[in-house]
């Protein structure tokens, strides 16, 4: 079963083609790593998949449902969640409130102006469980602005996981983390159950290569190598465009 299928995806900004006929087929439960040098079009590809940018051509399907023209919010309701390269969270709010917002996003209660959010104990319990999963339950009451960068990365992942996604897109989850924090996040990612398909962009090859079932190498918006870890690392084009020798 293919969880995420991208076919012939094209995107250009002012004539500059940043995504060139990209094809991608990620199997359900697979861990797919997308690598490439800076400017290869990795984050643009994520933004196209999540709907933040409309493609010029091509199709995107999530579990055989065509989502190419669906808005960002609809993709979340179909089971797609993502994290961002630059952390985008709610700094004035507590960690718990951040996760509650993620839970509310898929709940019809988000429209309700008549009930007290603080009294929705089921949401609070689910949020605390999601925070416990990333080892931050003890900080649930703390404002996000008073947490470390590594903790915020984990909150991002907790928010994504709280939505029980079928496909999870992680944009450089190890960026800016210390060695200890990387290990924490790595353990967390390894604990994600196999019913969640994970597609990850990452520069940190030490941890990322061990995580991936398959790797896609992008260069100038094009897929130039795809295969298992061994195949991609052994490919001379990988060495040429990414490893630098």
């Amino acid at each position, binding site marked *: 079963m293919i969880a995420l299928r991208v076919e012939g995806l094209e995107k250009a900004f002012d004539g500059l083609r940043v995504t060139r006929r990209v094809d991608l087929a990620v199997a359900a439960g697979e861990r797919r790593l997308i690598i490439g040098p800076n400017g290869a079009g990795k984050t643009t590809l994520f933004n196209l998949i999540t709907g933040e940018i409309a493609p010029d051509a091509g199709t995107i399907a999530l579990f055989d449902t065509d989502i190419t023209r669906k808005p960002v919010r609809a993709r979340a*309701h179909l089971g797609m*969640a993502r994290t*961002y390269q630059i952390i*985008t969270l709610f700094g004035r709010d507590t960690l718990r409130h951040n996760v509650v917002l993620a839970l509310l*996003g*898929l*709940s019809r209660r988000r*429209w309700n*102006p008549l009930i007290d*959010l603080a009294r929705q104990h089921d949401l609070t319990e689910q949020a605390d469980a999601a925070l416990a999963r990333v080892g931050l339950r003890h900080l649930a009451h703390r404002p996000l602005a008073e947490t470390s960068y590594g903790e915020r990365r984990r909150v991002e992942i907790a928010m994504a996981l709280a939505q029980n996604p079928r496909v999870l897109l992680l944009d450089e989850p190890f960026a800016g983390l210390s060695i200890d924090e990387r290990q924490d996040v790595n353990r967390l990612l390894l604990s994600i159950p196999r019913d969640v398909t994970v597609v990850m962009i990452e520069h940190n090859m030490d941890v990322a290569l061990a995580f991936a079932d398959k790797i896609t190498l992008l260069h100038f918006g094009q897929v130039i190598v795809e295969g298992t870890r061994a195949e991609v690392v052994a490919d001379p084009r990988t060495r040429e465009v990414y490893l630098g020798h």
Partner: protein
Amino acid sequence: MEVSTPRVIAIVVALLLLVTLPAWVGNPYYINVASQILFFAVFALALNVLVGYGGLVSLGHAGLFAVAGYTAALLLARGHGHLVADTVALAVTVLTAAIYAVLSLRATGIGFLMITLAIGQILWGVAYRWASLTNGDNGINVAARPAPFGLSLAGADGFYYLCLVVFLACLASMRMVVRSPFGASLRGTRDQERRMAALGYDVWTIRFWAFLLSGFWSGVAGLLFLYYNQFISPQIVALTTSAEALLMVISGGTATLLGPVVGAALVVIMKNVVSAYIVRWNMVLGIIFILIVSFMPEGLVPGSARLWAWARHRLRRGKSGVAAATPPAAAGEGGP
């Protein structure tokens, strides 16, 4: 959030003061000033839904305020009853708010501000130039205030109590919305629009409903304004009314419930009371705003809370022999 005992005491004392105000103020002029504070507070609270909780700064809300007043005034002048006139006026205002929203929510930031300003100016033009409908600069008179359930609102006391009931209803509804999942969603769209969409929220629709809520309460305030003056003219649709409402919200403190009320009190007292003693009261008001923006950029209510917390902290540290060097960071929202 549990309500602390000092807060309960403060609320009870404030309610007692408000309910007994006509008795201890006595002078009808000042009771009328209190009525003005209350209905302008309703207007400021309505604007605060967008400015404070939605992060959408509108400079055209006078249009919504005036649409309600003009619609009711026109219907009353044509012989309709108060109930019909007021109901239709609110419906027309909400419809106008929907048009505002559809046009202005294409943008955020400066773009949103400019579109609302433009719509407000169009409505001002209609009020001023479409004289066959609006009577132009001469305005429209309303013969009498309503008398619901036989209660007279003709005097200062009766009208004050009407304003108080409406103000408390507005405050309660705002509190409910702010604390609800919808309120959290609206604040989320203000803080991280992109993230909210990725989490499954329909950002545009959330803002649209917020606009309707803001429009409804702006209309209610506009009706109170009409009945207070028993007259409406293009002056109230002008940009200065929108700007004053925005100043009320910003000076009191955005994204707080008490801030717009304090801001409304400040502006109304300056215009009606201080102006009797100081000829250049406008200049004084301007200086006050500059001081607020300079020393309490978060507004009077959150700023006072911050200074109070700092003073208490300093007192405690002073007792233990260590002086507090700097005030604490600006207070966040969710306060009074």
